[in-house]
């Protein structure tokens, strides 16, 4: 008997949003709500994604230009699993302070803004290291 069942919708999975304002954007799963919650009785997850991708940085850019081009606009969203396309990529960014809020990280406006800022900082520092290049390139369609 082979236990072939691999759950792949886990934290750290890179996904692409399929519906909504952020359709076509890449995001990372921050927290999974398998069974759903009382407000959302379906499987969904909290994702942190790129509302605005960082621009292409070239070698002859000055330090100031590089800093400006590496900026990222982040979004946090609770998405249904059916509105997500999982990919084979992962992004192991530590989203502890974003995820610790959990469902109420998005409850009030200022909590959401604070979590968003934390996520933005994390994503920006990851982009600057040059890893996970696929994640930070815009999906052309």
């Amino acid at each position, binding site marked *: 008997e082979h236990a072939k*069942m*691999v*759950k*792949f*919708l886990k934290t750290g999975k890179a996904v692409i949003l399929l519906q909504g304002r952020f359709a076509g954007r890449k995001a990372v799963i921050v927290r999974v709500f398998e069974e759903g919650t009382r407000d959302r009785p379906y499987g969904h997850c909290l994702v942190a994604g790129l509302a605005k991708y960082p621009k292409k940085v070239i070698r002859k850019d000055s330090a100031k230009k590089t800093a400006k081009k590496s900026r990222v606009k982040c979004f946090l969203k609770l998405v249904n*699993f*059916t509105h997500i396309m*999982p990919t084979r990529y992962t992004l192991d960014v530590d989203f502890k302070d974003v995820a610790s809020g959990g469902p109420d990280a998005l409850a009030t406006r200022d909590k959401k803004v604070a979590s968003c800022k934390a996520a933005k900082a994390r994503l920006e520092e990851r982009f600057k290291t040059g890893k996970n290049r696929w994640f930070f390139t815009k999906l052309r369609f």
Partner: protein
Amino acid sequence: MAQKKSGDNINNKLQLVMKSGKYTLGYKTVLRTLRNSKAKLVILANNCPPLRKSEIEYYAMLAKITVHHYHGNNVDLGTACGKYFRVCCLSIIDPGDSDIINATPAGQ
């Protein structure tokens, strides 16, 4: 000749699954079972639209679940399931008495 025999075999095994096992029919539920890893085997008809086929194969690749390409179109697959409607993709959750899970990885 060997080809024909394995075609019959799959039909017989499917019949057994329909009788004794758990399964879901249809694209939406197939994706759902793939996502929560309840599926053990996914069967696609041969006239499944290529985008949908690729999508299901990709999900199955992530979940490490075998996909079987049925030698017949959705009408045939529906008949093989004993249903009077077309079935483009189906997912077997619990094979019951059938050994379809062990038999197909070789067949594909």
